[in-house]
């Protein structure tokens, strides 16, 4: 464990198991390694280490009889604080309230759209799902099938390739039919694809969604920071959904995306079933990252 590795590092250096300013750098190198192995992006690890260095060199650790454990606690507390933010609920602003989901290919957007619609309906609202992925083979069918599973209608236009027109018509349909929340599923895209990023920008400008959620696969590695930062800079995201947390990845991407965007993780995808969308628990995530 990190605690044992730190204890060994500190013992080697000082001979007595107490952290001093001299062996702090070696101890912090162990923390850096642990975070990198957990897939936290390098840029975020560096900032994290420099932040905890001050806290670690403080009185508590220097006097602690188990400095290794004490340092781990400082790391854990810092992780929880950074991951936590306030427990920000999903916005219900807008008539209708528009929630847009976007992210890289295969991250879990379509599955999350249906899960989120179910959660929103259980919260007493009347949601409509919109199939705005006009590229992926059978994307509309996939969303329609999931919509049937959760018994929530899916607005789709089989023959249209015009995303702007589909969303415009969907919103009109929502207003006419009394749906007060509209969840828009979009096609997976690379953050470097200027045309597809422009598509999202156009939707943002025209419809001003109350929620712009970046869907991120929790097994993502180092690129999490660049991906999240780009989506945020171009679109202004309001929150993050971390998916596939039912896997066994350490999930360091969670820290990378929260730190680089300053936005909260609003939900955790915990499986392929429609009820597998949970609130995000910072303490659990921090434990997982520390391994």
């Amino acid at each position, binding site marked *: 464990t990190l605690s044992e590795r730190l204890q060994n590092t500190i013992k080697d250096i000082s001979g007595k198991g107490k952290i001093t300013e001299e062996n702090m750098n070696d101890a912090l190198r162990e923390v850096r390694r642990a975070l990198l192995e957990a897939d936290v992006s390098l840029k975020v690890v560096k900032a994290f280490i420099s932040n905890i260095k001050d806290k670690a060199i403080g009185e508590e650790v220097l006097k602690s009889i188990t400095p290794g454990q004490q340092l781990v606690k400082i790391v854990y507390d810092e992780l929880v604080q950074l991951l936590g933010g306030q427990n920000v609920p999903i916005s219900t602003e807008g008539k209708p309230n528009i929630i847009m989901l976007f992210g*890289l290919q*295969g991250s879990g957007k379509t599955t999350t759209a249906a899960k989120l619609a179910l959660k929103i309906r259980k919260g007493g609202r009347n949601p409509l799902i919109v199939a705005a992925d006009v590229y992926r083979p059978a994307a509309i069918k996939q969303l329609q099938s999931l919509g049937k599973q959760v018994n929530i209608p899916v607005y789709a236009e089989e023959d249209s390739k015009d995303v702007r027109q589909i969303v415009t018509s969907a919103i009109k349909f929502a207003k006419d039919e009394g749906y007060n929340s509209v969840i828009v599923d979009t096609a997976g895209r690379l953050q470097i694809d200027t045309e597809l990023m422009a598509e999202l920008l156009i939707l943002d400008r025209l419809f001003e969604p109350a929620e712009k959620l970046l869907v991120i696969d929790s*097994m993502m590695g180092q690129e999490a920071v660049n991906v999240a930062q780009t989506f945020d800079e171009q679109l202004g995201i309001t929150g993050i959904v971390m998916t596939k947390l039912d*896997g066994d990845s350490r999930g360091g991407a969670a820290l990378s995306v929260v730190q680089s965007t300053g936005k909260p993780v609003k939900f955790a995808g915990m499986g392929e079933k429609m009820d597998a969308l949970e609130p995000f628990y910072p303490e659990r995530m921090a434990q997982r990252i520390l391994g």
Partner: protein
Amino acid sequence: AQEKEEIDDDLLDEMEEKLIRADLGVDTAVQVIEKLRDNKNKIKPSQLSNYFKDEFKELIKGAGTGQINLKPGQLNIFLITGVNGSGKTTLIGKLAYKFRQQGRKVLVAAGDTFRAAAEDQLEIWSKRAGVDIVRQDDADPASVVYNAIQKAKAENYDVLLVDTAGRLHNRFNLMEELRKIKKVIDREAPGLLSESLLVIDATVGQNGLKQAEVFQEAVSLTGVGLTKLDGTAKGGIVMAIAKELGIPIKLVGVGEKMEDLKSFNAEEYVEALFS
């Protein structure tokens, strides 16, 4: 880096960070850079690109050839597996097209009978590629594979590409389902499983190595298909997979179109890593 006269600590740190950012993992990155540190007086910075190409080729050569195994005059079965959303179905569409371009008779099996519209997605790909498909939407995946093998043998297909549902490797019952599919292939078409490929998303972090370990045990992998390399991620974990598990990288996905498939080339890969 080209302007420097010799390799110094700053340059070594910069190179190590590049490798870490490419998802090679700390162990592999440190190992590569420490070896360079020992040899730094023998190498000029301008030679670094070639040095790394040789080093990486050396690192992965234990994994053997990255060539796709395709025997003439017989049925060749490809089993395509991997975690959710990695790009399996799309890869099959691309492979089907490539093999049909080569004049082979191709059949695809819709072995994902679980996920919404999985068979529809594969069917669209099979139509685009101009190949045949076996699908049975409410059946057990093993049963679809069984029927596909019977058809492939009876009608003299050259290639059978088997699509499977995405699954997380820590789900025991899902990995058992995969073992069952492999048993059907081994029993009904002994010696005809030419490739058992794990599809890995280039954005994956260190978990990719664990995925390879578990899938290797379940379905005896013969290679990795690395997808989404047209993005900014480098998929560096495949280096660890080749080195630690001896599994070669065979295919690379570079986009969402049917033609966006390449064979793995170590030189090109390293070039892109340091570009």
